[in-house]
């Protein structure tokens, strides 16, 4: 197992190098730059711009800049934001909590609700429930998240006044209930798509399993239906879900970005969007690397967990 993990880690590091090189190239080769914003708002002369460009080291050749950045990154120095001079790692960590809170809540809702819908749908295939769940899931997957978010705000915040229109907390309050109150709308909006996905995956996984020979074996030896479902089918059906969870991570992060935009949620997605807009290279690269690392860790964890749970896989 240890060797397997080491192997995967080596692969992951290779991927990170590719990811960072691609990201760096895209970012730096594109038109515009971090100074454009200052130029527009503050009254900077070309001389000022040239000077700041030099000060930021942006006048060096791209490979040099990349190697410099990469070398620093390996040593734990991810650079400083061009906007406020804060260290990138601390910028990320200060936004991470909000995103994780949102993602975790949405995931819990999605796994429980989606899983339940999926299992029930598979067992009562082609029933009214299954049809409704299928149609519902399809629509949920098709609604633009931001539009759904806007409509949610319109109905629940503007018209009904039940929920806050955004942000993570009422400043100065920040109690658990207050946090929860703010969390409801964005979490539900984010969970909508996730629930649909989990429902779909769970349904097909369950369908796959209940047609397996060993389920027939369990029936043939006279096991009661509930036992077949829980002991024999569900455990097998949940296995591929581990991989799904690992693969879902990037999707979830992307969904969070949109939800965070609509609900002005102070998370990573918002940060990314703003930093892209400002061409805040260190922060953008930091987030790209961070999310890539998260994705890789996610799939690594999923694989390890799979190996732990599935007796057939013994890596080493």
């Amino acid at each position, binding site marked *: 197992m240890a060797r397997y993990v080491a192997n995967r880690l080596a692969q992951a590091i290779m991927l990170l190098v590719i990811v960072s090189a691609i990201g760096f190239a895209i970012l730096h080769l594109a038109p515009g730059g971090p100074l454009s914003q200052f130029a527009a708002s503050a009254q900077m002369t070309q001389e000022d711009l040239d000077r700041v460009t030099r000060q930021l080291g942006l006048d060096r050749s791209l490979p040099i800049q990349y190697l410099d950045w990469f070398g620093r990154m390996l040593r734990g120095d991810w650079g400083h934001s061009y906007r406020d001079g804060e260290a990138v790692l601390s910028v990320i960590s200060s936004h991470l909590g909000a995103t994780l809170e949102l993602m975790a809540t949405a995931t819990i809702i999605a796994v429980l609700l989606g899983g339940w819908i999926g299992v029930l749908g598979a067992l009562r295939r082609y029933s009214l429930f299954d049809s409704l769940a299928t149609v519902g899931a399809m629509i949920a997957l098709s609604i633009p998240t931001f539009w759904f978010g806007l*409509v949610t705000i319109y109905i629940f915040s503007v018209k009904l006044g039940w929920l806050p229109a955004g942000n993570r907390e009422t400043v100065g309050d920040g109690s658990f209930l207050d946090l929860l109150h703010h969390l409801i709308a964005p979490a539900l909006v984010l969970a909508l798509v996730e629930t649909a996905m989990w429902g779909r995956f769970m349904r097909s996984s369950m369908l796959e399993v209940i047609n397996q020979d060993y389920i027939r074996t369990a029936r043939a030896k006279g096991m009661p239906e509930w036992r077949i479902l829980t002991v024999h089918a569900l455990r097998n059906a949940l296995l591929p879900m581990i991989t799904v969870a690992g693969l879902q991570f990037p999707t979830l992060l992307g969904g969070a970005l949109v939800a965070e935009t609509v609900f002005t949620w102070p998370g990573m997605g918002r940060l990314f969007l703003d930093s892209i807009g400002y061409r805040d290279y260190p922060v953008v690269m930091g987030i790209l690397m961070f999310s890539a690392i998260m*994705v890789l860790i996610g799939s690594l964890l999923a694989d390890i967990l799979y190996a732990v749970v599935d007796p057939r896989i013994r890596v080493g």
Partner: protein
Amino acid sequence: MTSAALSTVQLAPGHAAWRRFRRHRLALAGAVIILVLVLGSAFGPYLLPFDDTYIDIMKRFAPPLSGAHILGTDELGRDVLARLMMGARVSLSIGFVAMVIAMAVGIAVGAFAGFFGGVVGAVLMRLVDAMLCFPTIFLLLALAALIEPGFVTTTVLIAATAWMWVARVVEAQVRSLREREFAVAALAFGSSNLRIMFRELVPNAVAPIVVAATLNVAKAILLESYLSYLGYGIQPPAASLGNMLNNAQIYLTSAPWLAIAPGLAITLAVTSFNFLGDGLRDALDPRMNIP
């Protein structure tokens, strides 16, 4: 039953699949809606008395069903229905073209990686993995923020974020198919690699490819709307469903129809493609064969 009967696909090209597909009512509905959307966006604008870009500033925000404007007018007094049709035309075009590009790249990369395996395959698939490390929207934004928005760039960008999944699907299919006896037989009678790849293997991966293609159109339409929502997309005065929605969001409280019409149109189009994809998956998947 002997093992031979279990061993493989008994796929009737077309026939059985079409029968199964026909049974899938939602998919059929999806196909019909797509047809209506395509025809509507292609010919609809010529049937309306309004030009989609004609501004009549005195008639802004006319609600639906008021006078000649069936769906009302927008913030510049343009006919919403005309814009909706033109917007659907642009959005569907982006969806289709992006899909075709993503498919072409994905199939090529997947086929080569899957067929040759080894170093070539590893390098290509690591590239795919690397691209997949970026959450789609992150990647899209990173790219979009950097390039001038427009039809071509938007389409290419969306394709650039979508081909990896196709490559993965095709790679997996080709990798397993090349071990199949018919592929080995082709090798044994002296077919060239390219011939085996594109004459023997890829046509057999057509089921997942077709499904991926449909779902890709759906995804591309959705992504276009996300791009527009986040401020990078089709340039005015051209309409796309996404930028109509983007323009409408500030009038959500005062002129909700401006947001509802394109929002519903996107949902409808995307749902239709998703249903179609779902139906095709069922129809083309031989495992769904009832004994």
